């Protein structure tokens, strides 16, 4: 590898890791928003993946190839419990119960000290998530969403987003699609969480709360959800910007919150407003 590239990777390694992981989180948000659902539990699912992964590695010493799928499975089960009943209800029920999930898990991580290390979190997690793995996964996921988006499944998803009732009348099994999307998104967020845990070597209970949930939402809102790449671009911009705008310091969260307000009010298609063509 060229020497400058080595230097570059060394200097910005954390940032580059974070970009890839945030890209995966943005895709997990895309996965539910693409069919008009709003989950605010992506941070919570990420946290479940992170804690599951870290504990399996630290306490049981399981190999990483086994840790990763289990880190995706645990949030999937929780998504099933929360999503099962809400998906037949008005969309606000899913939003509310997923925010509440994040809050309650944060308290549980803090209180279950013997297992989770309490407020101090878990540290000394071996750094097993290589950049290759993170970006390989990101590329595969983008390609996967792209391919699915150009099939009848993608058309059904966009139809649901535009007019759920009409989509049902077209023969789309609405509860199945919603549950499938929520579970897929929980798995993706869980994977991202586990990868993050195995690249930062430290996790703590406050990383997966309300603020993280809002930040992940802002990725998808800023980027848009017309194509799978759009939310990833949103994540890259919002992850790199604060890094460049260090002086924002305490006001970083103000900035993230305002992005959401402005995007919903004035930029409903995001900064990458193109839409995937869904016919051959």
């Amino acid at each position, binding site marked *: 590898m060229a020497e400058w590239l080595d230097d570059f990777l060394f200097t910005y390694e954390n940032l580059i890791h974070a970009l890839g992981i945030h890209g995966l989180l943005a895709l997990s948000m895309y996965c539910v928003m693409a069919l008009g659902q709003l989950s605010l539990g992506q941070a919570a699912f990420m946290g479940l993946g992170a804690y599951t992964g870290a504990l399996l590695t630290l306490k049981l010493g399981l190999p990483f190839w086994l840790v990763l799928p289990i880190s995706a499975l645990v949030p999937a089960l929780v998504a099933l419990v929360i999503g099962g009943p809400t998906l037949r209800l008005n969309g606000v029920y899913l939003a509310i119960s997923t925010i509440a999930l994040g809050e309650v898990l944060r308290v549980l991580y803090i209180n279950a000290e013997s297992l989770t290390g309490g407020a101090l979190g878990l540290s000394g997690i071996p750094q097993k998530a290589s950049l290759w793995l993170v970006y390989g996964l990101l590329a595969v996921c983008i390609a996967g969403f792209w391919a699915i988006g150009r099939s009848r499944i993608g058309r059904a998803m966009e139809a649901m987003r535009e007019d759920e*009732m009409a989509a049902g009348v077209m*023969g789309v099994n609405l509860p199945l699609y919603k549950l499938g999307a929520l579970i897929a998104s929980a798995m993706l967020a869980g994977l991202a969480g586990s990868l993050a845990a195995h690249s930062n070597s430290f996790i703590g209970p406050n990383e997966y709360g309300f603020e993280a949930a809002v930040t992940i939402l802002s990725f998808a809102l800023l980027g848009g959800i017309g194509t799978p790449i759009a939310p990833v671009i949103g994540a890259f911009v919002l992850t790199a910007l604060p890094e460049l705008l260090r002086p924002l310091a305490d006001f970083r969260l103000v900035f993230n919150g305002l992005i959401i307000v402005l995007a919903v009010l004035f930029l409903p298609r995001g900064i990458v407003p193109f*839409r995937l063509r869904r016919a051959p």
Partner: protein
Amino acid sequence: MSALLSARGLTMQFRGLLAVNAVDVDVAAGSVHGIIGPNGAGKTTFFNLISGLLRPTSGSLTLDGQDVTALPPYARTRMGLARTFQNIRMFSDMSVLENVMTGMHTRLKAPGWSALLRLPGFRAEEREARAQAMELLEFVGLADKADGRSGSLAYGEQRRLEIARALASRPRLLLLDEPAAGMNPAETRELAVLLKQLGQRDVTLLLVEHDMGFVMDLCDRITVLNFGRKIAEGGPRDIRNDSSVIEAYLGSKVAERLAKAHGA
């Protein structure tokens, strides 16, 4: 003739209001069946019950001999039911062609993983679907707009696109809720021609329409609803001469005119 769809004692109550009140209707296979009645008579609610968007307060529905009263909309679509809406419901951001292909949802069988891997089977099915969608668009006269954004179509074009989208599932029973509403006389005549051709394609039609000439010309059998109740049923000639229908209709029409005149 056997009944493709039967409603028995179908009732829908919204709080105090009986929007559909103990209605019995049989729609014969292969027929064109009209539902008429003044505004607010419960026609759209009746359609919502048939398509599964509403659960009836009581009563039952059978489609092709099977009880479908408790089935969700998608399951009824799989059984051969399709509909259009009184207030057009387009997937506006999608292209015209994509709208029609969305209507094929229940017919496309290639599994998700074959789409993921873009296997030849999946691609062949998509090509075939596109060709069929183009045929439907030609049938309704929208082939030249296939790649345009559906939300940008003119009103009458959107109505025709909705019909094409509904036909894409190859329904046996097609419900049309005021298909000619908002169309000019020329468009309405074209629509009647189109619907007559559908009859020859083995599609049973159940349609709600206000344009009496249109209904009388097209329908084999007509059911009249007023305040949620069925007040008459028969062939076009019987209905035209039925005194209770004339009264319900003219009564309300006159009332409507008066109301309009006062409002203006």
